[in-house]
């Protein structure tokens, strides 16, 4: 199946986000943190969402799980999951879907776990919210999921502070696996860990995914982290999707200038040492996004047209399945970005 410019036509999708708009109401007017995002996730697929702080990636994730709270609100669009629109679904039915079919793993396991209750107690709470299981069955299932993430079930009696950071994060993942959901959304689950623990957790998530067949939506600011693990990659900038495509293609031949700059911002551990520039400037204020392309003030190849014409997400003819929000990829009258920029306005 080839993804098209309108992913919403993807009928086999497990999750189908259509034109989702999420705004934060502020005294100075609404701030749109998620501007018309389309995203499909197929069963068993691993989709990475990357972008800088404030690009709307966590907002999108909260919108998918319907966990947003005021002042954030959904201003438009649909989140179709297993054929149901989560945006309009009554709270009772939403509650049934959550955890059983759609689980969430949050960024900071230290804050997500209750410090004064044991791991086992917290697993029990989650189970009893959905099922009337016997104590014995609850214990069995809790022990089973802990073993899945390579934690000794003896830790069901442990408190969160008795576990290391990596173990806490794995316990959170075990908790999400209690009902073997169809989709797990993860918000930077490895950001508090150091590289070795981070790599080991990523490998474990991938192994579990292959074993149990759930789909993953993985949000991170570290593009290199998902490079080996995700099937498709969604790059967000200033509330918009700027590039979406198969992970390998996006890494090997990034289409959007932002994706390219993001990739060039990583110092490499191998190969020749080259001076890097990072991305000059800062992400824009979403209350007052730049006219034209939102990346234009920081873009290394900006042209005059970029400052006035807002690009859409265009499918790339050269690489199937890739979409890019850059005027250079406009099907009619594409601009030429190969010439040096006329003037870079970023400081």
């Amino acid at each position, binding site marked *: 199946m080839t993804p098209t410019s309108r992913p919403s036509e993807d009928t086999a999708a497990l999750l189908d986000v259509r034109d989702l708009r999420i705004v934060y109401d502020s005294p100075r007017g609404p701030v749109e943190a998620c501007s018309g995002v389309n995203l499909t996730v197929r069963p068993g697929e691993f989709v990475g969402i990357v972008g800088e*702080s404030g690009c709307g990636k966590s907002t999108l994730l909260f919108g998918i799980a319907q966990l947003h709270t005021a002042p954030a609100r959904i201003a438009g669009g649909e989140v179709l999951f297993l054929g149901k629109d989560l945006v309009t679904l009554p709270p009772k039915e939403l509650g049934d879907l959550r955890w059983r079919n759609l689980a969430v793993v949050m960024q900071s396991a230290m804050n997500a776990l209750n410090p004064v209750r044991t791991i086992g107690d917290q697993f029990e709470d989650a189970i009893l919210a959905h099922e009337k299981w016997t104590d014995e069955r609850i214990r069995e299932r809790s022990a089973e999921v802990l073993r899945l993430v390579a934690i000794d079930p003896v830790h069901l009696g442990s408190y969160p502070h008795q576990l290391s950071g990596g173990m806490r994060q794995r316990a959170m993942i075990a908790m999400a696996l209690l009902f073997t959901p169809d989709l797990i959304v993860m918000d930077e689950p490895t950001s508090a860990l150091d*590289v070795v623990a*981070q*790599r080991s957790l990523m490998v474990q998530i991938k192994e579990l995914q292959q074993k149990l067949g759930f789909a993953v939506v993985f949000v991170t600011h570290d593009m290199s982290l998902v490079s080996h693990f995700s099937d498709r990659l969604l790059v967000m900038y200033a509330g918009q999707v700027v590039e979406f495509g198969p992970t390998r293609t996006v890494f090997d031949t990034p289409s959007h200038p932002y994706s390219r700059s993001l990739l060039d*911002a990583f110092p490499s551990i191998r190969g020749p040492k080259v001076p890097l520039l*990072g991305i000059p400037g800062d992400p824009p204020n979403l209350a007052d996004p730049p006219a034209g392309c939102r990346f234009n003030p920081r873009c290394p190849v900006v042209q005059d047209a970029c400052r006035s014409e807002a690009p859409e997400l265009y499918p790339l003819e050269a690489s199937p399945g890739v979409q890019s929000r850059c005027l250079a990829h406009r099907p009619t009258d594409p601009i030429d970005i190969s010439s040096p920029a006329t003037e870079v306005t970023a400081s």
Partner: protein
Amino acid sequence: MSPLLETKDLSRHFKVGGKLFSHRLLHAVDDVNLTINEREIVALVGESGSGKSTMARLLAQVYKPTAGQITFQGKDLAQLRGRKQHLQYRSDVPMVFQDPFASLNPVYKVSHGIKRGLKLHRPELSAQERHQELLRVVAAVGLNPPEEIIERYPYELSGGQRQRIGFAQALAYRPKLILADEPVSMLDVSIRIGLLNVMAKLRDEEGVSILYITHDIASARYVSDRVMVMYGGHVVESGPTESLLADPQHPYTQLLLSAVPDPRAPLEVTTEAAKAEPPAVIDPKPGCRFRARCPLAVDVCAHVTPVLRPVVPEHAAACHVTAPAEVAAA
């Protein structure tokens, strides 16, 4: 040339166990010999709990050493007497903190912190000179235009800009050595490079040395001249950055390098060592602290603590297997 700063068998132990008369000791830092030369960026690399932040605090005199010695410009720190000498050391060796959101006072403009430092550490400056110096350090860390930036409050700055203010504050003291404890780990990947470039610029243009503490070995490679790898309170490997990373000797350094996510490299298979946890070094017995995770461990590792031995000039590793004593003797 004598080093700018040198530590000799520096150790710091903490009492743990909660009980009043507990005698269990956590060995956060054990027998560390560190040298930092002038105009040099030394990266101290290790995972959480390896003792790298304790090292920074020992050098900043937040903690007193349990044992060992710190010498700065040939002078033993334990010999410092009186407010004046301590103040001088603090202005020579300031610290930049990890969290740019917590380390600036939110109710003052960013000029406030820099000016206070200038008043305290360089009282000879007139108000006008102070202002000039303020503008100079803000511009030196790449914040433009400085006249406008100094009028802002921390909430008006992004994380990367705030962290640059952290470096500007340190720079205002005319430091010899900046202790930077994970200065970029809270920042977005896309703006980390900008700050690393600022560090390199401070070394090249202001002649400052920097101790760069990080768990990100790729950024250490990018900016540092020498690398020291810490594990469980010990330095397990040290050497010039390029030679150490091109040919890592200690199994832990090799593990660290293989864990770095690199989109340009193929995925390497994880080992059991990668799944294990770093040790809590409480009342340690002799032996290599990495042996439980080490794929190369042999009998002697359980009984004898390996010491740093040179493998090639200036590149040393503490490992019985890859840097055995016979080679060092030869």
